[in-house]
């Protein structure tokens, strides 16, 4: 039993999780019938899938507390550093064509009270990008990765969390309306580490993120929260895969979305694999969609693959629906107008996710963003 856990586990055979690979050729141009592409708007995503060089970058604005450093590594060096190889064509192209990965390191043992903040701003170009976060053992930090502006952005993001570290990784997609954003965020949870990710997708024409996570040893804990607000003509897709590849690990996924307007489309895939070795684990996945108007479509697909019965618990739930009439009746029976009651319910629906961000200024910004989104359709009622 001397072999490290990662190497001891068997290969994944499920068609839901294509084998990760840096080789672009291992990820052929999709035709739309593939399991991982069948919900995606391939035509709109063409720039993210087409192998054309680009030297452009997003504008990088950082605010780092003491204990955080950054440097660039070559694509070859980056391959040895990542949490996981690219899982789809977009992220494979991103890693191969980025010209190098930006590495951000949180020192081991650092106790950061201020967030590690990075804002990536698009200026209209097509960009291949790769960012690697190395979170040192036994450190405590909040990392904020914000995306703004206009771009076609294909990305690979790796978050390597050292043993015993506690990290809150917040990724915000607050793009301009015409932005395209596709890629792969992969998290490696260290032994006894505690990881929370919060993914907020609001803007952009297409946002399609594969978010995968696995464990570097036993005892790790992973919480993944997500919030999305989809407007007319927008496609927002989050594809989660939690690989319970180590015993006594825990995961909890809670994604919530609201949709409004003609052609608003959300996709949520929540895959969990519990490998034979992963005894004593617990996992729960939840996705809730609130459909605010006609003409929207929400796809929500939880999948649980269990290869051992020796676990604490595993479950998932998925709900997609309109407003709860009983909630609206209760609020309105206190004199609150229908429009205001709806706003209260939606705010409440998201507040539970937003409070996980842990950075008050960003939480307020997100609540205000939800408020703005709501005014699109609900302003008319008031």
């Amino acid at each position, binding site marked *: 039993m001397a072999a490290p856990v990662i190497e001891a586990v068997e290969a994944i055979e499920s068609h839901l999780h294509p084998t990760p690979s840096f080789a672009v050729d291992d990820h052929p141009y999709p035709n739309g019938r593939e399991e991982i592409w069948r919900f995606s708007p391939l035509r709109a995503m063409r720039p993210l899938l087409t192998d054309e060089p680009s030297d452009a970058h997003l504008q990088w604005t950082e605010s780092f507390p003491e204990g955080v450093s950054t440097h660039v590594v070559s694509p070859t060096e980056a391959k040895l550093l990542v949490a996981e190889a690219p899982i789809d064509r977009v992220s494979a192209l991103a890693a191969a064509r980025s010209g190098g990965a930006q590495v951000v390191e949180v020192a081991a043992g650092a106790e950061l009270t201020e967030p590690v903040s990075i804002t990536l701003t698009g200026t209209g170009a097509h960009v291949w990008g790769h960012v690697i976060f190395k979170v040192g053992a036994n450190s405590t930090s909040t990392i904020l990765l914000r995306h703004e502006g206009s771009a076609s952005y294909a990305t690979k993001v790796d978050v390597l969390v050292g043993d015993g570290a506690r990290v809150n990784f917040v990724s915000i997609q607050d793009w301009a309306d015409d932005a395209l954003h596709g890629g792969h965020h992969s998290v490696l949870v260290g032994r006894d580490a505690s990881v929370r990710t919060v993914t907020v997708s609001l803007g952009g024409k297409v946002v399609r993120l594969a978010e995968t996570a696995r464990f570097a040893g036993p005892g790790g804990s992973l919480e993944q929260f997500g919030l999305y607000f989809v407007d007319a003509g927008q496609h927002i897709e989050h594809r989660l895969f939690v690989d319970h590849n180590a015993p006594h690990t825990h995961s909890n996924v809670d994604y919530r979305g609201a949709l409004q307007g003609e052609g608003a489309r959300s996709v949520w895939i929540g895959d969990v694999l519990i490998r034979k070795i992963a005894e004593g684990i617990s996992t729960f996945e939840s996705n809730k969609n609130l459909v605010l108007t006609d003409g929207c479509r929400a796809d929500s697909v939880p999948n649980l693959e269990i290869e051992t019965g020796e676990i604490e618990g595993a479950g998932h739930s998925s709900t997609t629906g309109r407003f709860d009439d009983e909630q609206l009746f209760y609020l309105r*029976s*206190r*004199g609150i107008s229908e429009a*205001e009651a709806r706003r*209260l319910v939606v*705010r*409440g629906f*998201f*507040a*539970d996710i937003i409070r996980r961000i842990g950075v008050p200024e960003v939480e307020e910004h997100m609540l205000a963003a939800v408020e703005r989104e709501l005014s699109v359709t609900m302003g008319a009622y008031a």
Partner: protein
Amino acid sequence: MSTLTIDDLRVEVATETGPKEILKGVNLTVSSGEVHAIMGPNGSGKSTLAYAIAGHPKYTVTGGSVTLDGVELTKLTVDERARAGLFLAMQYPIEVPGVSVANFLRTAKTALSGEAPKVRTWVKEVNAALDRLGLDPAFSARSLNEGFSGGEKKRNEIVQLELLNPKFAILDETDSGLDIDALRIVSEGVNRFAAQGDRGVLLITHYTRILNYIKPDFVHVFVDGRIAEEGGPELAENLEIEGYERFVKAAAAS
């Protein structure tokens, strides 16, 4: 002086086998300053009466009227009825995750009075109302009804009753599921509300227990979708001894 008048109210509900009439001509007048108890067996339609007056979408009014000081309530939306002065304390208050009690109360108060309450005095008022119902100030930070015990839900309804202070309050089985201490605390809240003298109370209950704490001026026995008998407090005492059997049999025979 205000008056809530229910005149020959007929209400039906949609079922799998088609519409079913639940209220079969209810007549009742409640004036401010009065406490009316409506008592009846399970399934008699007394909760339907409460929800139909409040405007729950599940119920369809097919005849009759409900007026508050001459304003026809059945033509108004749910929130318009509340703004007209009506309040329903629910038997099963609804959970609204992520909406704090404080935010809910402030929003409701603003909607009812047409202007936001003054921050400083309002927080004091809320805390005082919570305290009177035996609830901690921290209660107002909790999500509305989410994870509340049955007793906490009912206390929270009475906190709202006191803070929103409507002209007429309908209390739907507010006593059900309460232990004796909670029943006393909740009843005291209702009595404080009624003691203002210009408010009306319609107290719906299955049991006579709550009438040991809240003294009704009038008692109505509700059977099979209509009022079967009316009287003073002594009628409740008779029910305590005889039960509803006599009325149920009479309704079945008619």
